């Protein structure tokens, strides 16, 4: 009698343990499998792009890094990514400069300023922006924003023309420029940056905030001393997510931008191009070498995106000690 209950309970415990072990191992293998699968997919993409790229490098009479034109199917194939690198990075930087401050502001408003009744639906609305297909942004940009950009363009030309980059040199041309593309991209990446930043700001330790207020800080000072330092790594990763989208955005750019093989620092002039836009517009009619050349440009975009994400990781890692998360 005395020995039976422990046996029974021991049996239950054992059974329970073995169950949980099986569950553990299944889950472990599933998650390890997912991780491995991801690496395999990434490697396969990189391998495929590299293979096709090298096929095209042999058939290029120009320099892949400095040539402006993209004529891989011409009798004398010449193509290069100079214009595409510049256009991709310039439009993404413009998008980030506009989107990040606005997104942080919106996120702070939702997490710390707005009354709960407004904050909830407002956050929901911002998330909805992310659900709009990019072709819609593209059409809106091309048919609505571009005609309405003329005023801003000529104002900036007049007062900021001395900066060179805001100087418009093509009078009468519709402003289908890298600058306009940057604005459209900014709107497109706004929701993702806002959503992630908002969640991070909400995690800011309540004690820190209350301590700041108790020491006589105003609400703005409290946010500056307690919330923003805590949220900085989160905002950076949010921005990098947004930057990733901006770098790779295709159809909206293809619809808005007036592309040309011209590398010009006049960002308000129509012209330039981006990687994804170039691929989208050229792929349909490309011949064998043309397709390989586009793959090569895709590989460069892939590498740029990797570098950007790597840089973001490093920034986050360096700032870990300030974050308050540990």
């Amino acid at each position: 009698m005395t020995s039976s209950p422990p046996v029974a309970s021991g049996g239950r415990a054992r059974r329970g343990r073995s169950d949980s072990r099986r569950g553990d191992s299944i889950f472990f293998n599933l998650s390890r499998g997912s991780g491995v699968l991801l690496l395999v997919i990434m490697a396969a993409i990189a391998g495929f792009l590299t293979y096709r790229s090298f096929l095209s490098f042999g058939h290029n009479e120009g320099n892949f890094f400095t040539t402006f034109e993209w004529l891989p199917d011409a009798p004398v194939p010449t193509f290069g990514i100079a214009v595409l690198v510049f256009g991709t990075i310039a439009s993404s930087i413009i998008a980030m400069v506009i989107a990040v401050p606005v997104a942080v502001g919106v996120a702070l408003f939702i997490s710390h300023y707005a009354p709960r009744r407004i904050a909830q639906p407002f956050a929901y609305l911002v998330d909805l922006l992310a659900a709009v297909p990019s072709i819609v942004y593209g059409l809106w940009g091309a048919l609505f924003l571009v005609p309405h950009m003329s005023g801003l363009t000529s104002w900036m030309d007049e007062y900021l023309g001395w900066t060179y980059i805001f100087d418009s040199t093509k009078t009468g041309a519709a402003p289908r420029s890298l600058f306009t593309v940057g604005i459209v991209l900014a709107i497109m990446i706004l929701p993702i940056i806002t959503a992630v930043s908002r969640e991070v700001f909400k995690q800011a330790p309540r004690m820190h905030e209350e301590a700041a207020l108790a020491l006589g800080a105003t609400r703005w000072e409290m946010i500056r001393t307690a919330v923003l330092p805590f949220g900085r790594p989160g905002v950076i990763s949010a921005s990098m997510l947004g930057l990733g989208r901006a770098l790779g955005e295709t159809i909206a750019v293809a619809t808005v931008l007036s592309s040309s093989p011209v590398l010009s620092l006049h960002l308000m002039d129509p012209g330039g191009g981006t990687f994804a836009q170039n691929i989208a517009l050229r792929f349909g009619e490309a011949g064998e070498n043309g397709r390989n050349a586009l793959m090569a440009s895709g590989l460069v975009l892939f590498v740029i995106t990797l570098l950007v994400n790597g840089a973001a990781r490093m920034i986050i890692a360096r700032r870990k000690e300030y974050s308050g998360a540990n």
Partner: protein
Amino acid sequence: MKLQRNGRSKALAIGAMALVGSLSLAACGSDDNADPKASGAPSAAAIACGKAGQLLGAGSTAQGNAIDTWKVAFGNACAGSTITYSGGGSGAGVQQFNQGKVAFAGSDSALKEADVTASKEICKTGQGINLPLVAGLISVIYNVDGVDNLVLDGPAIAGIFDSKIVKWNDPAIAKLNPTAKLPDAEIQAVHRSDDSGTTENLTKYLEKTSGGAWPYKASKTWAGKGGQSAAQSAGVSAQVKQVPNSISYAELSFAQTNNLKSAAIATGASKPVEATAANAAATFAKAKIAGTGSDLALTLDYATKEEGSYPLVLVTYEIVCDKGNKAETLDTLKSFLTYAVSDAGQQAIGTKGYVPLPKELSEKVKTAVTALA
């Protein structure tokens, strides 16, 4: 609706009333499905259906609307047969054809030597051939206030699109338009940002007729200097509509649907030639056949000086195997192409801004289609 009615009256005149009647009904989304016999039975007379089957095609977007029109009529007449055409561009279409994924490819240009060689693997006993089935013309569309009957010639068009002529009142344009009130405004030239057969045909024309003003080789990729660009014919048409003092080029249907003015071309004939389907058909009637055997690749005379012959034309091909087509789709392929080249088929796309093939040429295509194996 208006186009549809036009199409019907034209087609009535040539006697294919039942077919096109059912076509326009179908296109209007009416209830002809409710009584399949009423529309199906007479159509069957015009379309020889053959064995029911699934036909896959891919390629040129320029002929997408034409194929769509035919596909609806063919599908209505031939129960069980479906045509699926994906317009990923000529290059992609030819690639898929040479991989054996599609029964026919639509292409803006005739097969290149290398493509023909590659096609022999798929066609086994035969090789890929070009059948001209969808013809069109390129309008030089413009938006200049107060100018309605613009006349341009090869050198002027080349100069405009290469940014050598930058003002509307340039002497080169004024000379061709002595009575027009040309504004002292900058020309906003818009070209295609994507690679396209339309660009290729325009530049072929410029190569032949600009007398050296167009220094580049004809190609699908835009080579000219300056100007703006936009994606697809729809994109450039929208730009011309939106931007004052702009000029661009697009297929006739885009000029029509957007209500854009098209320039007449001074070819050397006694008076400038308007961009109309009839004037383009006159050019096609004079086209030479460059292909051998059943290959009907055309050489177009861009430098034509004939009266009423519009020089800026383009033709797109269906690419099929002359022999060695897949047995299971051969029957459907032949009946579909036979319908496409028939008067009814050509008139049907004539209402969509394409140019019906002249009789002599369509007879040759018919013979080639009948001989497919």
